[in-house]
């Protein structure tokens, strides 16, 4: 049997911690979260693969480390409905609707129709004061988008951690909106080859 190798990308879980720590200091760092939106799409559209999910996803590596190596996962079976296409695609549509709402609110702030909200909203419900991470002087829509994106990243991280704790370590991957989207792209590009 092959000896288990420690690849460099096994340590990408550190990026998750760095990202959320930076956003706690200065909200503008939240823009770096767009990396997790763009890279999977580049791999899927350009390469027709899910290499980002398979190797380079910092969240996936974080869940693997916490769930498998640290042993925090209860490893229960996920309910069937959570693994079904209706939930996976439904969650993807909801997630991207929330993402486009962030862009819309940023546009409202940029157009001076609405004032900036210096808060992070967790689970689309609970507003946490986050005002120390923002100082005026920048075009308001820029920090507004950062607050929104950080809220979305933090919310999805919480859901991913809860799923990891209850179910198998990488249960989030089953209904991850980016994973579902990139698999859909890969399926559209896939041409079966006879062996």
């Amino acid at each position, binding site marked *: *049997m*092959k000896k*288990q190798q420690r690849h460099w990308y096994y340590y990408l879980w550190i990026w998750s911690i760095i990202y959320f720590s930076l956003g706690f200091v200065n909200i503008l760092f939240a823009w770096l979260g767009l990396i997790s939106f763009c890279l999977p799409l580049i*791999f*899927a559209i350009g390469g*027709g*693969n*899910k*290499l980002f*999910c*398979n*190797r380079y996803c910092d969240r*996936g590596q974080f869940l*693997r480390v916490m769930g*498998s190596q640290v042993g925090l996962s209860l490893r229960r*079976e*996920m309910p069937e409905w959570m*693994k079904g296409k209706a939930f*996976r695609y439904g969650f993807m549509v909801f997630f991207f609707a929330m993402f486009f709402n962030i862009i819309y609110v940023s546009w409202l702030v940029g157009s001076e129709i609405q004032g900036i909200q210096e808060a992070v909203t967790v689970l689309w419900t609970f507003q946490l004061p986050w005002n120390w991470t923002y100082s005026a002087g920048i075009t308001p829509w820029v920090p507004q988008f950062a607050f929104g994106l950080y809220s979305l990243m933090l919310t999805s991280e919480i859901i991913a951690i809860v799923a990891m704790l209850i*179910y*198998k*370590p*990488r*249960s*989030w*991957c*089953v209904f991850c909106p980016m*994973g*579902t989207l*990139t*698999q859909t*792209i*890969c*399926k559209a*590009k*896939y041409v079966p080859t006879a062996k």
Partner: protein
Amino acid sequence: MGKLSPRHAVVDSNMCVACGTCADVCPTGAMEIVSGVFAKPTEEKCVGCGMCAKECPASAIRVEVRS
């Protein structure tokens, strides 16, 4: 070609989310993700240990006795 193991992993491609967890834990490197769509074991390499089935979050893998 070597002798095939009596047991082997079988992937339900409709359930598979191509996350790559199986490929990551496979001790023989038998699992590959085909074009980001589904996982597929290389029959010659698969020893039917069940590590992939144990870790698969989508429960898309089972270990069967070869027919």
